């Protein structure tokens, strides 16, 4: 693994002639703050960065915290049990446990905070951003700032970001943005794409599938999935993610139109209530879902999406 990373780093360095001589990473030796990323000088090309391998996790208490963070990331239903209300994993959306470029890698997210977010209209610390994942994507309870769970996740992300430059645009952050679809998005075309390309893993009714009692393929809708406040509930986010990363191992095998359509289909299903619910779907849509990318509050197949109790769940309580 170490060698592989080194090769990747070196190749990256060669690609950027300006930085070729600055490649200073020496395998498993401590990096002494030597940047592993290669700043582009002449052009404003995004910076290519490779996170360190697990073998570089330091020994001692900090290393233990990093490892705990990685465990939470892979198995929140075990390591952050009291804060989650479904069997999704952080690594379902942040692939390769937060390492994979273009799959919302944690090394790129880490250095992007603190940041202003229009979602809540304030500057969010990284920990506050993590709280949002628990509240919405995990349909959970929010761990307090400074709680062990958040410190562990932050430590793991810090570790992955070690050597990444601050204030630079990192290649691979988030999901690559798709251009607008050529045709208006279509729920019914999306249903066909879903049946052909997604149902084998995620199940015909979006319920996901397990192996030996452990969820392997996450539920995409219904009571076991993310709630209406989650980022993946945005058709745009879901389309960006899907085009780049789905089906697993076959990135960009769907057309962009298929990605838009299937994201529309998935995000037009029932799911747990938005925890910010304001007493009516209309008011909640107006305040929190006032965008064409949210299906919340729209009527699809005769169902007004977003009504409480459509997909009954108890936030922060794991379903059996």
């Amino acid at each position, binding site marked *: 693994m170490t060698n592989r990373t080194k090769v990747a780093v070196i190749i990256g360095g060669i690609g950027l002639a300006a930085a070729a001589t600055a490649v200073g990473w020496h395998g498993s030796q401590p990096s002494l703050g030597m940047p592993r990323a290669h700043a582009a000088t002449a052009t404003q090309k995004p910076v290519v960065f490779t996170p360190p391998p*697990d073998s570089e996790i330091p020994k001692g208490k900090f290393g233990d915290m990093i490892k705990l963070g990685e465990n939470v990331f892979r198995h929140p239903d075990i390591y952050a049990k009291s804060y989650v209300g479904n069997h999704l994993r952080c690594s379902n959306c942040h692939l*390769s446990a937060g*390492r*994979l470029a273009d799959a919302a890698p944690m090394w790129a997210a880490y250095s992007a905070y603190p940041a202003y977010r229009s979602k809540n209209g304030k500057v969010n610390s990284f920990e506050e951003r993590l709280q949002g994942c628990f509240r919405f994507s995990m349909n959970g309870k929010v761990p307090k700032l400074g709680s062990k769970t958040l410190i562990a996740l932050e430590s793991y992300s810090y570790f992955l970001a070690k050597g990444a430059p601050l204030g630079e645009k990192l290649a691979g952050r988030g999901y690559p943005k798709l251009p607008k679809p050529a045709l208006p998005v279509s729920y019914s075309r999306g249903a066909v794409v879903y049946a052909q390309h997604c149902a084998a893993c995620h199940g015909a009714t979006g319920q996901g*599938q397990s*192996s030996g009692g452990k969820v*392997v393929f996450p539920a995409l809708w219904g009571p076991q999935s993310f709630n209406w406040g989650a980022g993946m509930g945005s058709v745009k986010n879901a389309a960006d993610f899907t085009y780049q990363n789905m089906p697993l*191992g*076959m990135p960009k095998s769907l057309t962009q139109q298929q990605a838009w359509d299937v994201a529309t289909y998935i995000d037009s299903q029932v799911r747990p209530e938005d925890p910010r619910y304001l007493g009516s779907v209309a008011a909640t849509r107006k305040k929190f879902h006032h965008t064409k990318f949210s299906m919340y509050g729209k009527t699809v197949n005769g169902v007004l999406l977003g009504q409480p109790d459509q997909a009954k769940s108890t936030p922060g309580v794991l379903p059996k």
Partner: protein
Amino acid sequence: MKNQLKIRLLTLIGAGLLSLSLSLHSALANPDSPGGKKIALIGAEPGIPSCSACHGATGAGQLSAGIPRLAGLTAPYILAQLEHFRHGTRENALMTPFAKKLNTTQMQAVAEYYASLPVPRPSGANPPVDQQLRKQITMGSSLAENGLSQSAMPACAACHGEAGLGVGTFSPDIAGQSAAYIADQLHEWKANDRRDPLGAFMRAEALHLSPSDIKAVAAYFASLPGASTAKGATK
């Protein structure tokens, strides 16, 4: 490597057919036996040798020879493979002639029989003594659990589960499966073996793997005891 395996298999088949078919034929020729069990243990007429000659009476396979364990694989999976052998979508010089002699009902019966058997697994109690094998297993566990983020190769566990137990009809149970068999299959996918629509996933996956990666993941899954003792599932 492939030829060696074939010779290995043919020798085993010869020996197995003689000993097992002869000894089991009289003992188990019970007309009340469910069809699947009969085909599995004593073969079917005309001229279909027993599956157990190679895969063993318990369906445990002959792991070191690369003959896979069948016990505990799902019936739809086994049936699908037999159909692939019959139609040539999955190429295998040994299995194709047998599969061509079975009709669909017989295939279904034998698939259900093997699916019903208890699954023999490695105990997982003692780590292997062999240093090199231990190294391979460690390397394999990283590939299986993390994939290769640099080349966007998903973790094997993302489809087979962290304990390697497989998912429904999508991915087979490979915990404790023959390492030689897993490695052979990965090499075949890498060489663009078509097989079936789901094989597209394995072809995409195998393309990322070097020969030493293949050895490593094969050794890792062969070592798994099957229970959910994968990292993270225990604490």
